[in-house]
């Protein structure tokens, strides 16, 4: 029991890989480095898929690229509605990033979403975008007035919601990733062969992608509510 707990803590801790020697040293965590690797992979895929685009006689590569882009675009757009169309590219980017980072555990990396700092940053960006969308759509006064709707008595709850929304977003993503990870580790200790593969399909691939989808779905739902 002691050994298991020790190994889990070791796996859950995010170590500092190196320190940038400016301003008294900025520590660079492992999650940041893995994020860079994921960014490089995504950039490489984008680069390969988007070379030599033509209007007529498209290649198979371009057909794949078009399919992926239109599918993801229409997926997010169906959630966010016509009004919030300008936020679709950001949401698709977040979807791809979270999806890739949740799967990256399969390739032996420590997934960045397992670090609470990453999910906090993601949800902070989401809530900033949500409030910005509201201000952009309605103007500052109308946006303030929205806090008192539908009746003035719910104002404290509406203000509280600005803080609970990102909290629940980041805790949901973090908890799911870490929960799946802990269960997989325990399973690997208990039954090292065959069974982990089956469960890995669910916990690593299905659940990881589902959580990316849920994160983007909730963000777009809030944005839709804000711009209405």
């Amino acid at each position, binding site marked *: 029991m002691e050994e298991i*707990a020790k190994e889990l803590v070791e796996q859950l801790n995010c170590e500092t890989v190196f320190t940038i020697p400016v301003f008294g040293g900025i520590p660079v965590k492992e999650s940041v480095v893995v994020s860079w690797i994921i960014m490089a992979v995504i950039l490489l895929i984008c680069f390969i898929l988007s070379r030599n685009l033509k209007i007529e006689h498209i290649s198979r590569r371009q057909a794949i690229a078009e399919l992926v882009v239109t599918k993801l675009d229409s997926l997010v757009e169906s959630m966010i509605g016509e009004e919030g169309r300008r936020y679709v590219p950001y949401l698709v980017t977040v979807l791809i990033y979270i999806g890739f980072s949740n799967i990256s555990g399969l390739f032996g990396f420590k997934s960045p979403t397992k670090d609470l700092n990453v999910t906090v940053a993601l949800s902070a960006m989401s809530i900033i975008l949500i409030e910005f969308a509201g201000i952009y759509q309605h103007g500052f006064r109308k946006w303030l007035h929205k806090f008192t709707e539908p009746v003035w008595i719910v104002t404290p709850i509406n203000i509280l919601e600005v803080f609970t929304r990102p909290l629940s977003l980041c*805790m949901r993503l*973090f*908890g799911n990733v870490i929960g799946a990870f802990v269960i997989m580790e325990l399973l690997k200790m208990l039954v090292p062969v065959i069974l982990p593969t089956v469960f890995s399909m669910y916990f690593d691939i299905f659940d990881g992608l*589902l*959580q990316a*989808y849920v994160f983007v779905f909730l963000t777009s739902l809030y944005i839709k509510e804000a711009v209405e």
Partner: protein
Amino acid sequence: MEKIIALGAGIAVLGALGAGIGIGIATGKATEAVARQPEADGKITKTLILGCALAEATAIYCFVVAVMIIMMLK
């Protein structure tokens, strides 16, 4: 002391009961809906998976709390 910590973690996970009930009800209703309207299959599945993912979050919170109790209170 250790036994009490273990007990606390166990009690924290009791909250997962709600998620179980919620997902059960959601799945039951989805089955009913598919039986009534088989052509709306895709939409129902999509909504169901989403609802399950949201309902599951409460269980996940319980789990996080339990893990924190075990890891932090040592």
